[in-house]
C-alpha cells in the first residue's frame, strides 16, 4: 500500500511538472525571445488559459502527500520553510502577471506584468529544480551539531545558503553548487518544454526560431546532465546502487535519454506534437529517475545519527491508506475524464480564441 501511494503521488507530481512545466517554460521563452506584441500576447495566452487547472495538480499532490505521508509532509514543509514561501510568492506574481497583462492596453502596464510573468516563471523553474536537488542530496535530519541532534530526528531546518555553498558541508543550505546545477537543468528542461508547447499551440512568428532554441538548449542540457551525474557520485557514493540491484529501474533514465536524444532531431520533425511529447518524456524520466535512485528513501539524511526518511517510517495508518485507495480510484477516473474533455474542447491552436477575463 505504501508503494501504491508513493507511486500515485509521484505520478501526480510528475503530471504537475509536465503540465505546469509547459507554462513555466512558456514564461521563460516569453522573457527572452518574444519581441512583438502579438507574440507576447499569444504566448501569455497559451499559458494563461491553462495555468490554474495545471496548478490544481500541485494542490492535489500536496493534499495526498499530507494524507499518506504526514511525517514527511510536516518535515519537508517546515524544513524548507523559506524556499517554499518564496515559491508561493513567485506563484502569485506569475499568476497576476498572466491574469492582469491583458486587462489594459497601456504598454507600460503590459511590460510590467510580462516581466512579472517571465521572471517568476524562470525563478520557479530554478527553485523547483533546486528542490529536487535538495531531496537527492539529503538534509541534516535532526539538525545534528557536534554529534547531537537539536530536534526530533524527523525534523530539520535549512537556511537558504551557507557560506561555503558546498553540498558536502555538514550543514548544507538550500542553494549550493550541486542544487544550482540541478536548478539549471530544470530551467533548460522547462524552457525546452515551453518552447515545444508554444510550437504546438500557437502560430507565433518565432516558432521556427524556437526550434533552434530547443536544439541549442538541448546541447546545454546534455552537458549539464553529464556534469550532474558525475558530481552526484561524489555527493552520494551510493547514488546508482538502486539501478544496479534492480535493473528494471533503468527504464526511467531510458525515458529521459530518449527525450534528450530525440530532441536533437527537432528540426526534422514535422508534426508539432512530437517535440512536446519528447520533452514530456524528459521531465517524466528526470523526476522518476531521481525518485527511483532513492527508493524507498524519500529524504536522505546527511548525518549518520538520524536515519533517512522513507516511505515506511513516514506513512499513516494502514486503515487510512486503504480507505483512501477507493476514493482515490474514483477521483482519478473522474480527473482523467475531465482532462480528456478539456483537452478535446481546447484542442488545436489557440491564437484566435477569445481571452475572456
Amino acid at each position: 500500500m505504501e508503494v501504491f501511494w508513493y507511486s500515485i503521488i509521484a505520478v501526480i507530481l510528475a503530471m504537475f511538472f509536465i503540465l505546469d512545466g509547459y507554462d513555466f517554460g512558456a514564461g521563460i521563452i516569453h522573457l527572452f525571445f518574444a519581441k512583438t506584441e502579438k507574440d507576447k500576447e499569444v504566448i501569455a495566452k497559451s499559458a494563461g488559459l491553462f495555468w490554474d487547472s495545471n496548478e490544481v495538480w500541485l494542490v492535489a499532490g500536496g493534499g495526498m502527500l499530507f494524507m499518506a505521508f504526514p511525517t514527511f509532509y510536516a518535515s519537508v514543509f517546515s524544513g524548507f520553510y523559506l524556499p517554499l514561501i518564496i515559491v508561493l510568492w513567485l506563484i502569485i506574481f506569475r499568476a497576476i502577471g498572466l491574469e492582469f497583462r491583458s486587462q489594459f492596453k497601456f504598454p507600460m502596464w503590459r511590460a510590467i506584468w510580462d516581466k512579472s510573468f517571465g521572471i517568476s516563471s524562470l525563478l520557479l523553474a530554478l527553485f523547483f529544480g533546486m528542490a529536487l536537488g535538495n531531496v537527492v542530496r539529503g538534509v541534516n535530519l535532526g539538525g545534528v551539531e557536534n554529534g547531537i541532534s537539536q530536534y526530533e530526528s524527523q525534523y530539520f531546518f535549512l537556511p537558504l545558503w551557507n557560506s561555503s555553498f558546498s553540498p558536502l558541508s555538514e550543514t548544507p543550505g538550500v542553494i549550493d553548487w550541486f542544487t544550482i546545477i540541478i536548478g539549471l537543468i530544470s530551467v533548460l528542461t522547462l524552457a525546452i518544454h515551453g518552447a515545444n508547447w508554444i510550437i504546438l499551440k500557437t502560430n507565433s512568428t518565432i516558432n521556427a526560431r524556437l526550434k533552434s532554441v530547443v536544439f541549442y538548449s538541448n546541447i546545454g542540457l546534455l552537458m549539464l546532465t553529464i556534469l550532474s551525474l558525475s558530481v552526484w557520485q561524489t555527493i552520494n557514493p551510493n547514488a546508482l546502487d538502486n539501478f544496479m540491484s534492480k535493473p528494471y529501474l533503468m527504464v526511467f533514465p531510458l525515458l529521459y535519454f530518449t527525450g534528450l536524444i530525440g530532441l536533437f532531431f527537432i528540426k526534422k520533425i514535422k508534426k508539432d506534437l512530437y517535440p512536446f511529447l519528447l520533452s514530456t518524456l524528459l521531465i517524466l524520466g528526470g523526476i522518476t529517475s531521481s525518485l527511483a535512485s532513492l527508493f524507498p528513501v524519500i529524504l536522505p539524511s546527511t548525518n549518520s545519527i538520524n536515519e533517512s526518511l522513507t516511505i515506511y517510517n513516514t506513512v499513516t495508518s494502514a486503515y487510512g491508506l486503504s480507505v483512501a485507495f477507493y476514493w482515490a480510484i474514483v477521483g482519478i477516473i473522474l480527473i482523467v475524464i475531465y482532462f480528456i474533455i478539456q483537452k478535446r474542447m481546447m484542442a488545436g491552436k489557440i491564437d484566435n480564441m477569445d481571452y475572456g477575463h
Partner: protein
Amino acid sequence: MEDMILYDRLQFAFTITFHYIFPQLTMGLSLIIVFFKWKFLRSQVEKYNNAAKFFMKIFAINFTMGVITGIPMEFQFGTNWAKFSELTGGIIGQTLAMEGLFSFFLESSFLVLFIFGEKLMGQKLHFVTALLVFIGSWASGYFILATNAWMQHPVGYEILENGKYVLENFSALFSNPWLLPAFLHNQMGSLVTSSFVVASIGAFYLLGKSNVEYGKLFLKTGVIFGLISSLLVAFPTGDWNAKNVAKYQPASFAAMEGIFETEHAGAEIILIGQPNMVEKRLDNKIAVPNILSFLTYQDWNKQIMGMDKFPEEEIPTNVPGLYYSYHIMVGLGTIFIAIMSLAVFFLWRGRLYNFNPLLWSIMFLAPFAYIANITGWYVAELGRQPYLVYGLLKTADGISPTVSSGNTLFTLLGFVGLYFLLGVLFLILVGKTIYEGPKPEPHPQTH
C-alpha cells in the same frame, strides 16, 4: 516561543481571512449563475444569458484570486503547523486530499469550458458546465467544513502510542454532528455575500443610470436571493450551530454570548456591552432576561453555564475577540433580514427601482456581508481556542518545531505586502468589469 505562536497565528489568520474574501463570493455566485443560465434556457431571453456571462467574469476573477491565495493555505499546514500536520495528517489529510481530487479539478476544468466553450458546445451543455462549476465549488466547501468539523469536534480517530492521531472510521468524518449544520450555515452565508453583491451592482447601475435593464434584473434577483439566504443563515442553520456550540464547546458558548456568571434560572441574552476581563463582567450591558435559555433549549428557565463554571484553561484565550465577532455577526445578520425584507416588500409593491434611499443602502450593504461571514469564521476559530483540535491538541503544541520566529515574521510581513498589492489589483479589475457592464452580444449559433 510566545512570539513564535503569535506570528504563526497572525500569519494564518491574515492569509485565511484574505483568502476567504474570494470563495465566499464564488460559492454563492455559482448558484446564481446557474439560476440565470437556467432562466435563459427556459425563456430564451438574451439578457439572462448575458447576466450569467457577466457574473462568470466576476466569478473568474475571484476564482483566480481564490486559487493563488488558496495554495498558500495548504502549504502553511506544513510550513507553520508541522507538528499538527504530523500528528493529524492521517485524518485531515483525507478530507483535504479529497477536496483537491473531487472539487478543484471539476471546478477549474469546467470554468475554462464555460468561459470559452459556449459556441463550441451549445446552450444545454453550457448550462451543464455552469452546474458542474457550482457542484465543484460547493464540494470544496463541504470538504473544508469536514476538515474543520473534525478540528472542532474530533470523531472517528484513534491515538497511537507515539501520540499520533490516525483514522479509525472514515464515515465518521462525514457523519460528524458538527459538519452538516456548519456546512449549511457557511453556504447560506456565502449566498448572502453573493446575492448582496448582485443586488449591490444592480443598485449601482440604477443609481448611476447605466445598464438600467440589467440593474433591475440584478437588483430583483439579488434581493430575493438575499432575503431567502439571510433568513436561512439565521434560522435554522445559525440556530442549529449555536446549539452545537452549547452542546460540544460549552465554555466557548459562554464566552461568545458574554456570560461571565452563571445565573440560577434562565440566562439573559446580551445585546450590547464590553467584556471587562479584569473584573470578569460586562460593562455598559444591555440585556433581555431569559431569552438565551429559550433560544438554546426552548425553556425560559433552563440554566446556562457561565465562564465561572469552567477551569481557566478551558476558556477561549481571546474572550473579547470572540464575543465581538459573534455579536457583530448576529447584529449584521439582523440588519440584513430587515433591509432585505423591506426591499422585497417594495419590490412587490413595484416601487423598489425608484426608491433611492433603499438603493443606496443596498449598494453599501455588500461589504458588510463579507464582514459578517468573516466574523462568523472568527467565532468558530477563536471559540476553538486554546485548542487546535478541540480537547485533544493545544494550538501551542501544533507549530513547527524548527522554524524560528524571525523567519515567520519575515514571511508574515511579505504576505502583508503582497496581499496589499493583490487587493488593490483585485479592486481595479472588479471595478473595471462592473464599470464596463454586461455587454449584449450577438446570439451564438447553437449546433
